[in-house]
């Protein structure tokens, strides 16, 4: 297994970016998330871990209101980003999602060229006034996605023709291109091989400089490698939320300890 050394020092500013309070999520009659309160800090990678079906992905999708596209899903409680309630009636979920980017489990490049994949968000949001500016945005996003060197000579090639790891970095670059403030990642490495995983993890650590990153993962090693804060979910409850080093060395809750030592989940 690759183990990426990463800077262990905490960032100087630890202001709260997302504040969730007493969040409840229902799928029809199923109570999927129970009383979750969590504060996610800026310039930090926060990992959500827990067994399958524990609600970590569901909670992640609440943070950019992706659950709105599911008819039977109902969200209660407050989720504040920079102090503003994102479930307020005046908030347009479409605008919100531009601010809170998302990367999915399976790489899902659009069946378009690499360039058009990246330019998709900026074009929708009118971020570029002319072609030169758009070129700039695309290049910057690809550089931040750590894929520029590999694709700069074939920007017009289809994005679906890249390898799995490249596709996932393309998707990260695509999310970054709309200049979000928060980046949500739903098991971004589960479809990748160890080498591509290492590249993406390295990228996540760099992205921390500019964004609040929230990552859902099944791999506890990955959570330990890339995150500074870890939240452990179990059966829809947030069991424990603390510094990653503390969760993995000295957890307070017995369920957390059972999970990270492999006895449950």
């Amino acid at each position: 297994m690759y183990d990426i050394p990463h800077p262990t020092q905490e960032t100087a500013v630890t202001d709260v970016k997302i504040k969730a309070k007493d969040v409840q999520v229902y799928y029809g009659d199923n109570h999927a998330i129970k009383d979750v309160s969590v504060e996610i800090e800026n310039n930090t990678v926060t990992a959500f871990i827990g067994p399958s079906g524990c609600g970590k992905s569901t909670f992640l999708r609440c943070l950019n209101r992706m659950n709105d596209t599911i008819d039977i899903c109902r969200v209660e409680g407050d989720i504040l980003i920079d102090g503003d309630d994102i479930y307020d009636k005046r908030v347009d979920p479409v605008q919100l999602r531009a601010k809170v980017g998302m990367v999915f489990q399976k790489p899902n490049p659009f069946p378009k060229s690499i360039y058009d994949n990246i330019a998709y968000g900026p074009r929708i949001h009118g971020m570029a006034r002319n072609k030169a500016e758009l070129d700039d945005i695309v290049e910057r996003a690809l550089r931040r996605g750590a894929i520029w060197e590999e694709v700069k000579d074939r920007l017009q090639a289809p994005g679906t023709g890249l390898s799995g790891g490249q596709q996932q970095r393309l998707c990260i670059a695509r999310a970054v291109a709309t200049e979000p403030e928060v980046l949500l990642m739903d098991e971004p490495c589960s479809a990748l091989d160890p080498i591509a995983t290492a590249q993406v993890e390295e990228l996540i650590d760099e992205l921390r400089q500019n964004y609040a990153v929230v990552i859902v993962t099944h791999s506890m090693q990955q959570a330990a490698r890339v995150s500074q804060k870890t939240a452990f979910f179990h059966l829809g409850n947030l069991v424990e939320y603390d510094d990653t080093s503390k969760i993995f060395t000295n957890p307070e809750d017995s369920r957390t300890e059972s999970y990270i030592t492999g006895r449950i989940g």
Partner: protein
Amino acid sequence: MPLLWLFLLILAIAGAAFVLARMRVMAMSGQDRRSLHSLPNYYGSNAAMKSAIPALLVLVIWLIAQPFYVNSVVSGAIPDSDIAETSSRSLVLAEVRRAADGIDLAIATGNLTEDEARNMRADISDVTQRLSDAGAIVTSQITQPILRAAQQFRVLNSTGYQLMSIVVLLIAVAGGLWAFKETRPDFRARNVVEQGVRVLLIAAASIAILTTLGIVLSLVFNTIEFFRLYPASDFFFGTSWAPSFSGRGGSSDLGILPLLWGTFYISIVALIVAVPIGLFSAIYLSEYASPKVRAFAKPMLEVLAGIPTIVYGLFALLTVGPLLVSVFGDDGLGWMQAGTAVMTAGLVMGIMLIPFVSSLSDDIINAVPQAMRDGSYGLGATQSETIRQVVLPAALPGIVGAILLAASRAIGETMIVVLGAGAAARLSLNPFEAMTTVTAKIVSQLTGDSDFASPEALVAFALGMTLFVITLGLNIFALYIVRKYREQYE
């Protein structure tokens, strides 16, 4: 022996073989069923298969081959001198067959005994009289050579059928015995039956393919025959369609261009109607409609596909045509002379094509992975932006395929144009004028009593061939595009 009896007898032999083989293998295995290679029924099936299938095959081949043999023998027996100058050998043979059928009928009704029928020196006028008494169709006085040939025809046929029955039954029994002999516990009956099933499936598939081949070949040969009578360049590049109805040939103009133009014009009008409506309803159904609306609306749309085209034709003739005339006719804008026009047929055909476009496009849009939509929503795109910029481009090849399939259906459509578009073959740009299509003209060239060997009738095959090549090309192109699209997500 009547055919049905023969058939039932073969089945009975096969059934007996099944039971016997099963009993034999059960007896050989004793109490221990596990010493058998296959289940007892497989041994039975093996025996039934081996007794029935070769026998039935021989039966079919014999039934096909015997008429040819009898015909050639009888035909060889008629001397050239007995064929009248105005007649031909095939006409005489037809007469012989008629006479033979007549004799059969006379025997069946009791007007003639079997001995009399076989009597070579029978009185011709007497026989003729008795045949017409029996109600047989006898054109004129039967001549001596024809009667003799008819008698020979009957004898050959009846001995042939007797021989066939014996041979086929022997084969069935022999096959059953052979399978019975090889029925031992270690015989791999299951594998053999499996092989038999495979052969059966292959045979079914080849019948479909061979029939298609036969249709194509008959088109090709008749088309070649047509081009022997009528120059191909005039057919493909002629701008006038004016067949003479006398059937004597000569002054007919058989240019395909006006018909092709009518076909394409009407198809284009139909597609202009069907593609936007079909596509938009597909988008609504697959992306916006709630499951309840979808469950109701999709079957409703597909009901349109179940309406017979003749009903659409009536709708064009009786409803849409008069409606258009009242708006664009002399009382209105004055562009339209009569209800039958390109516009009438095109509009109605467009309505007919809506369910094709919409249900195919709906399937294709649904096949676009949800991950694509999630990716787009996750970037802050609205629903219509997602559809326009991600879903539709991803589904586009498939949608093009759907449209091409609809187009090839439009080109091959007949009833709506027969009733809705009129019958005038002309090259015109005015959509309110009557025009006609290739299919409508095939109908009109082959109905009526024109001589089948004249270019006016044979042109139907050339038209059909052209149409076939065009729709085949469109279908292949559409399938190629659809297949190329499929590879993207696998």
